């Protein structure tokens, strides 16, 4: 394997911002302050160029023809896979499965590994802070199989109770699926410990990496996770593309997910034999441009340096936490010791929806609602929060604009 050496430049947020054309625009006559990154991030020029270049110069279907364009498209598509492999530090490229996103990755595992290995009376463990996409697929599986869904509780800061987790683990446990970094609370979970404990029972672990993948330097071998799912669109890449990493021996033993072209070795009406990894799980024409765009995004953030990004975002989180704590009537939801990039909060006597609308008029984009994590809202006895979530291109000045916007909303709505 040849390793590309990518020089790491000192992190300069103003230069980073120039790489994201969308950030220069005004909304409602005000400079855009984009703080809805946990929903999706903006795309650097490098990604836009990669997409345009692919469709302008190389577009063809992959794996299917002998002509030059198809050969090129296939090569770019597979190089993108290798880029993801390196990014995750996976052992082999065939452990990287293209999906539509985190949601599809989790469903894939639930419907293949899960259906094969989970039976009546067995248990699947998730946590109290899961996104709906890491709840519902397991609920569907448990319902079908007569299995039981167990939930790791959390404390008032939004930290998982590991003692409770250890009590849940047992001979009936067949799978553990937890979020690496919570989109609703910002909690960074102690996933290494969670994985170690599960492995003591021989139980595989899936990490929902939708949020972590663009904030936290990753090494799936070091974590020793069995599956890792993330979405391209949160990682500065295109929508509609995502990755499911799985250990080869597990993926090999799993039945295929969807049937169709590319995932087969041979088809007769009597019997079909399946292709090898990773193609076994990639039925139909894949999102070729998406994969190439995602690779461009990974190359972009790797060049910035995942550690530099994490440092920058840590500064923003500390600065933002202090700034928000100084707002009267504001309560942060999610105050874990280990956190990243998410500031979820409620304001006394102001509905998050109203705050969101008023902030939008100030050019500030945040998300309000339950963040697809209704059980989290229930746990904290609220219906919704306002959430500001940061990415590599955000600045302290933008947080100041947010705080001024909140003061303004309080005046208007108070």
């Amino acid at each position, binding site marked *: 394997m040849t390793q590309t050496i990518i020089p790491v430049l000192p992190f300069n947020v103003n230069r980073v911002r120039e790489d994201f054309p969308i950030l220069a625009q005004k909304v*409602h006559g005000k400079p855009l302050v984009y703080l809805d990154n946990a929903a999706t991030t903006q795309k650097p020029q490098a990604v836009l160029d990669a997409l345009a270049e692919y469709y302008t110069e190389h577009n063809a279907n992959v794996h299917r023809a002998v002509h030059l364009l198809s050969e090129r498209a296939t090569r770019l598509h597979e190089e993108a896979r290798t880029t993801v492999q390196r990014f995750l530090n996976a052992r082999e490229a065939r452990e990287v499965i293209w999906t539509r996103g985190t949601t599809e990755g989790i469903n894939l595992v639930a419907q293949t590994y899960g259906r094969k290995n989970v039976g009546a009376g067995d248990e699947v463990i998730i946590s109290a802070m899961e996104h709906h996409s890491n709840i519902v697929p397991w609920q569907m599986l448990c319902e079908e199989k007569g299995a039981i869904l167990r939930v790791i509780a959390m404390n008032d800061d939004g930290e998982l109770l590991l003692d409770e987790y250890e009590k849940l683990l047992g001979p009936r446990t067949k799978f553990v699926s937890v979020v690496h970094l919570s989109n609703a609370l910002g909690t960074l979970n102690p996933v290494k410990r969670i994985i170690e404990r599960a492995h003591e029972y021989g139980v595989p672990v899936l990490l929902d990496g939708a949020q972590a993948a663009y904030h936290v330097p990753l090494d799936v071998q070091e974590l020793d996770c069995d599956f890792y799912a993330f979405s391209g669109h949160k990682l500065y890449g295109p929508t509609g593309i995502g990755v499911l990493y799985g250990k080869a021996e597990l993926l090999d033993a799993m039945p295929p997910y969807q049937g169709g072209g590319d995932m087969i070795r041979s088809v007769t009406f009597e019997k079909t034999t399946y292709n090898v990894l990773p193609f076994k799980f990639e039925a139909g024409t894949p999102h070729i441009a998406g994969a190439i765009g995602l690779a461009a995004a990974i190359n972009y953030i790797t060049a910035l340096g995942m550690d530099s990004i994490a440092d920058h975002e840590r500064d923003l989180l500390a600065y933002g936490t202090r700034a928000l704590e100084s707002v009267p009537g504001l309560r942060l939801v999610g105050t874990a010791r280990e956190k990243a990039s998410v500031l979820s909060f409620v304001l006394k006597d*102001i*509905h*998050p*929806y*109203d705050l969101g*609308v*008023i902030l939008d*008029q100030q050019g500030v984009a945040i998300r*309000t*609602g*339950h963040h697809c994590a209704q059980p989290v809202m229930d746990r904290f006895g609220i*219906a*919704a929060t306002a959430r500001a979530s940061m990415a590599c291109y955000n600045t302290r000045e933008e947080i100041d604009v947010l705080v001024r916007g909140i003061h303004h909303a309080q005046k*208007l*709505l108070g």
Partner: protein
Amino acid sequence: MTTTTPEEQADDLVEGFELFDTWDDRYRFLIDLGRKLPPLTETEKSEVNRVHGCQSNVWIATRPQPETPEPVINFVGDSDSSLVKGLIAVLWRVCSGQPAEKIVSYDVEGLLDRLGLSQHLTMGRRNGLDEMVKRVKALAAKAESRNQ
């Protein structure tokens, strides 16, 4: 309730809105409209009357109407969001106390467009506004069919 038509009520609102230069003022006006809504009783804040929007709680309840020559629909509403409550007030202004057939055919979307509030309709999935409009129209349609 006055006997003016929904169109006249709407024109009044639009005129009021046009007096304001800034969105802050428009939103303040909307919030004030909401504050002036007749309050719901606790029994009216029932599960049946709840409109399932995504973010805020919304209730729409009809109130019995003393016999009028032409049957009219009186409704009240509330929300824990001040802006959504303002939007309910807009609906209330133009529709409540109007004959059912007028409500059923009234172009709420067009009005919100004129008020520059159609953003809230596209956001309807988030604030329950489209559900709210549907609920009011369904209540009106039901009353209308009862009277036929």
